[in-house]
Each structure stands twice: as C-alpha cells, then as structure tokens.
C-alpha cells in the first residue's frame, strides 16, 4: 500500500538506493528531499510487531505522541513498558488551552486562560494535512473524531504595509489579478511571436487557449475590468435579482504593484504539499489526539518525573529522575531498553551515556522559536461582518497572520481566533515581551484586518515556545549540513537506547514526524532486542 503516493514505495526506495550508490550520500539526500516533497510521508501501515521475549522491559522517556505511540506498539509486541513524563500532563506538544488553564512560562510570567466554555487555542500543532497518513491512521484506530480545517479561504484578507495604500485586499482579488495578468502576458508574448524560440508552432494555439481559460482573459487575450475578471475577483456591485440585479464589475489591482508587493507568496503558500487541502483538526481541540493516545496506556504513564541521567551497560538501561510529586526525590528506573523522546534542547543538557557520535548529534540541533496568540472576542465579527468563514488572513506585520476557527461557524457568542503565529525573528521579539505586551501588539496589528478588534475583545493568551520549560523551543531546526553530518547517528540504535520524536524525522515540526519516527525506532529496537538473544 503506497498511501497517497503516486508510485509504489518499493520503487522509490530502489531508486533512492541506486542514486545513493551512483552519486553518493549528498545526491541521495537531495533526491530524498525532493521526492519527499513530491510524495508526502512514508507510511504504509502500522508495524505489527510481535514476539517479544517474555519479561523484556522498555522504558519510554516522554509522553508526547512519539513516546506514547512507542509504548503502545511495544506493549502490543509483548514488552513490559513504562513511560516517564516530566509534565503533570501527557501529550507533549500536542496541547490545547481552555478557560481555567494556567500557562506558566520560564521567566516567571503566568497567564490564566479566560476563554468561555467550549473555546480553545491549539498553541502547538493545529492542522493535519490529508497525506499525514500515519497520524490519521492512529486517529482512526483510537477513535479521534476529525473535522475539516479550513486552510485556504478566498474571502480572507491579505495585507502589506507598503503596498496598495496599506489597505487590505481579498485573497480572491489578488489571486485573480495575479493569475490574469500573468496569463495575459504569456498569451500575448506567444501571440506576438516573442517566445518562438521557446514554444513550438503547434504548441502556440494550445498555450494561448490555456492562458485564456486559466486567467479569465477576453477572446482577444486581455485581462481587463469586466464580467470575466469579476467572476473571479468579485463584483463592485454583486449580482442580484429583479430589475436592478445587474452586477457592476470591479476595478483591477495595479499590475506592477502585484509583482513588487510579494503578496503572491501567500498564494504559493497554499500550493505547498504541506499546506494543500484537505486539512483536518480534531473536534474539540488538538489534545483530543494526545488524550486518545494516553487512553491506550492505562497505568503506564508516570507524570512528574524529571529525568536527569540515562546510563546503560551490557545488561540494561538505568534512568535517574527526580520525582517532582515527592519533593524531587531521586529515583532510578531500570529496563532492558529505552526509547528516549526527550526534545534535544533538553536532552543535550542531561547526563546521557551514548556513543560520541550520538552525543554530538544530540548537541547539534537547535530549536526554533514560535509564538501563538489566542484572542477571544464577544462575537464572530469576521463571519458576521466580513463573511470570512475559517481560513487565514496574512500580513507582513510581525503577527504574520490571523486564522479564524474552522469549527462552530455561524454560532453565536464568544469565539477564539488565532491572533498571531510567529516563527523566526518576530517570534523572538514576541517571546521577549510580557504576555500583556504580546496581546497589545497582536491587537494593534490585527486592527489592519479588523477594526472591530478593540470593541469586541474579551481576553487572550499567548504561548511562547522558547519559554516552555520542557522544550525550550518549538521544534528541531535541522540545517542541511547538520542533517548530513549528524542525522544517521541521531537515529541509530545506540546499544540499548534509541531516540524518537519529530527531531528524528524528515517531517520536522509536524506530529507526523513524531509518529513516523516512533514507528521506525520501535521497529529497529524490536529487531535489536530479538537479535540480542
């Protein structure tokens, strides 16, 4: 079974093997990257492990998705499994915030979430592409109810401070005009024989026809104000009924400003494999997944365990931890094997007895910074006033975007939107602010889209991943160089220890990466355990 891929996985592996043999690992890496992008994630089904030697034990460190799934599959295979988790909750970065929750971050700031019942923010993962088949498989298996997540909304806003007078434009207006003008230029260039050295004579007619249809051009290849273009970008006066129902076409945007503005980046964004529709979200909050995973492991997850050391010898693995539920009492846990899913940002500072190569790998991967803002408003003015139902409005301001809830559409009462989602420089900037400053900045910048913000605002919460005690960042930032030098060592089974998590995958920063990494890690660990008779 090849999942969503267009070619059987076997063929892909064989091809990659050949590329690796002929051209070396750099070419293999390149090929894997490009093919990975082309084909989605590599999942053909659950591992179906079985036949563990009776009495063999595995200690899993971390109760995020990677840890819990490792525990689930290993226990099914017959291992005695225990999971140690630092937090007072399981789920890891699979987390949702609701009214009454407390967010305590490094540096001492504490926020109490004030959302109304039923409202939530997913500060970590919040959407699942249709081709993340491994995660979706376990959602089905564990009974997690999913609903569509609206990624692309043609009626959402786009905003750039330096262009179009700083005014918002609708996604559909920009998309229609970008496509129309592009098609017009190409059609005319062909028509006027300016591309004769690039386009064969029998191609010309087809190409012109394609551009006319794709770009909504008139028969004489114009993209111009009129019914054709307005049927894409929307009318100045919309189509109506009765004697006065005739629509009035809308003005086009300024062509050269479209190229210059770079706003087309937001069209290209949705074309990435990772961002294509259909997207999903769990009903009621992303943490439905973590909770469902945890339900598969009754009594096996031990919370409040702060791991400080991982040692191993010929007979097993010994983990030292502080039992934070008992005044930090030092305790030791021992098992035959260990699956460690502790984020590298933490693990790199612990006393870990693994090979020098794996140690170097653990220390070689920095963690990115990301901040999310959740804002609760009295009513869904984005729906009621602006006719925006789900999707994302983008801006070049630091908040980068506002995303509207895909659930509860048309409902009355307070609702929560994602008031900012920062990566990189803006995330550092926001993480360094007080929670109050973050909200104030988020509201101020969001006013570019929604003047209703001030009047309708109820409360908000911010989540700064670089100040999260148990990750010190949002996810692993692999550079291509670090990947080449360290990735294999990071993923190797090191005597009795194997690492798993999004950091040990090519689907970094996605839950799918954690799941695929865990499945792969436990499969190889199982082989090792069977072979070590």
């Amino acid at each position, binding site marked *: 079974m090849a999942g969503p891929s267009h070619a059987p996985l076997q063929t892909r592996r064989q091809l990659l093997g050949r590329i690796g043999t002929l051209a070396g690992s750099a070419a293999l890496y390149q090929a894997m990257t490009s093919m990975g992008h082309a084909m989605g994630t590599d999942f053909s089904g659950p591992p179906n492990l079985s036949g563990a030697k009776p009495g063999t034990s595995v200690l899993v460190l971390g109760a995020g998705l990677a840890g819990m799934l490792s525990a689930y599959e290993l226990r099914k295979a017959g291992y005695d499994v225990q999971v140690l988790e630092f937090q007072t909750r399981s789920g890891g970065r699979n987390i949702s915030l609701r009214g009454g929750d407390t967010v305590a971050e490094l*540096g001492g700031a504490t926020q109490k979430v004030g959302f109304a019942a039923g409202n939530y923010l997913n500060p970590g993962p919040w959407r699942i592409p249709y081709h993340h088949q491994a995660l979706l498989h376990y959602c089905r298996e564990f009974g997690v109810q999913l609903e569509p997540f609206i990624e692309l909304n043609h009626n959402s806003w786009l905003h750039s401070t330096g262009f179009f007078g700083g005014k918002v434009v609708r996604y559909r207006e920009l998309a229609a005009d970008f496509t129309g003008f592009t098609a017009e230029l190409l059609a005319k260039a062909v028509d006027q024989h300016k591309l004769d050295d690039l386009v064969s004579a029998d191609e010309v007619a087809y190409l012109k026809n394609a551009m006319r249809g794709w770009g909504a051009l008139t028969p004489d290849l114009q993209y111009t104000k009129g019914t054709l273009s307005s049927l894409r970008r929307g009318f100045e006066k919309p189509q109506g009924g009765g004697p006065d129902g005739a629509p009035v076409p809308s003005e086009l945007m300024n062509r050269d400003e479209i190229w210059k503005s770079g706003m087309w980046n937001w069209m290209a964004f949705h074309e990435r494999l990772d961002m294509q529709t259909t997207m999903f979200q769990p009903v009621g909050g992303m943490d439905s997944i973590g909770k469902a995973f945890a339900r598969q492991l009754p009594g096996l997850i031990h919370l409040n365990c702060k791991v400080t050391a991982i040692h191993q010898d010929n007979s097993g693995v010994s983990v030292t931890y502080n039992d934070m539920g008992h005044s930090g009492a030092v305790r030791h846990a021992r098992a035959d094997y260990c699956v460690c899913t502790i984020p590298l940002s933490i693990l790199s500072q612990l006393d870990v007895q693994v090979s020098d190569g794996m140690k170097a790998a653990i220390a070689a991967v920095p963690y990115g*910074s990301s901040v999310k803002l959740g804002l609760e408003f009295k009513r869904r003015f984005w729906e009621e006033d602006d006719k925006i139902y789900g999707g994302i409005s983008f801006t070049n301001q630091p908040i980068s*975007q506002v995303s509207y809830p895909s659930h509860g559409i048309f409902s009355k009462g307070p609702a929560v939107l994602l008031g900012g989602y920062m990566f990189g420089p803006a995330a550092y900037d926001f993480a360094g602010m007080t929670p109050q400053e973050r909200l104030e900045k988020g509201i101020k910048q969001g006013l570019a889209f929604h003047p209703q913000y001030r009047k309708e605002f109820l409360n908000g919460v911010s989540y700064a991943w670089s100040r999260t005690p*148990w990750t010190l960042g949002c996810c692993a*930032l692999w550079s291509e160089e*670090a990947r080449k030098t360290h990735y294999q060592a990071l993923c190797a089974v090191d005597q009795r220890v194997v690492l798993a998590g999004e950091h040990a995958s090519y689907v970094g*920063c996605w839950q799918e*990466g954690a799941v695929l990494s865990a499945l792969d890690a436990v499969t190889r660990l199982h082989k090792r355990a069977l072979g070590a008779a």
Partner: protein
Amino acid sequence: MRKIFLFSVAMFAFVISGAARADSAAPATTKMVDMPSGEAVYRHICQSCHMADGLGAVGAGARIPALAHNPRLQIASYPATVILNGYGGMPWFSGMLNDRQVADVVAYIRTHFGNDYKDPLNPADVAFMRLHLTPEAE
C-alpha cells in the same frame, strides 16, 4: 547557506524562506523591527530566552544559561562565536544579524548584567569570524 533566517532586504516587503519549514507560520518572513543598538538586539532577540534581566532560566532538567555575572564573557570572541554558530539548543544568528549588530550586542551583554568587560569587538572582527564559520552557519 542556511535558509531559515535571512537578512531583511529593505527593497522588498518579503523575504522568501527557502526551506519549507514544516508547519511554519507563513511563506515569507515578516519585517523585522530595526535594531540600531546592542540593547535593541538584546530586547528583540536575546531576551526571548535569556530573559530581560539576563538571568536565563531553569527548565526540565535543562537550563537557559545566565549572561549575568558570566565569566565566559571575558573573551569577546566567545559570545560572538556562540551567536554566529548557535550552541546546543540555541539557534545560529549569522543570517539574522549583521556584523554591526553582533558586535553591538556582544558589547551590550559584556557591559551589563553585572559584567564589566570594556574592550570592544569591532564589526570587522565579526566579519573575520564569519570567514571561519562552520559550513552549517554560513
């Protein structure tokens, strides 16, 4: 060259982030605030982790090092190297900060938070250090 953090190019409103950054926020990096001084660099970048008071923090069995009263700041090239290359969980900033900004913020942390190392680091020194970056941080 690393693709995740790029210089803000003033003539364009957007800089495309070349690496498809998984569940990343947006297709283009947004405009960065101006950072004309070492203090500004510290406030807008460093304090997100090292905290406004330079004291860092302690998390789950791991910590964000304090810059306050830190004898490792005696030699200016040490913090400069860490800033350019990253260190452990800390990302590299060679792409986000220019030579002047690196020199400025090194001077700032070496003369604040209880540190008193006044010998300056010149932007030219930072430029020279860039030549010797590991391939990862170029």
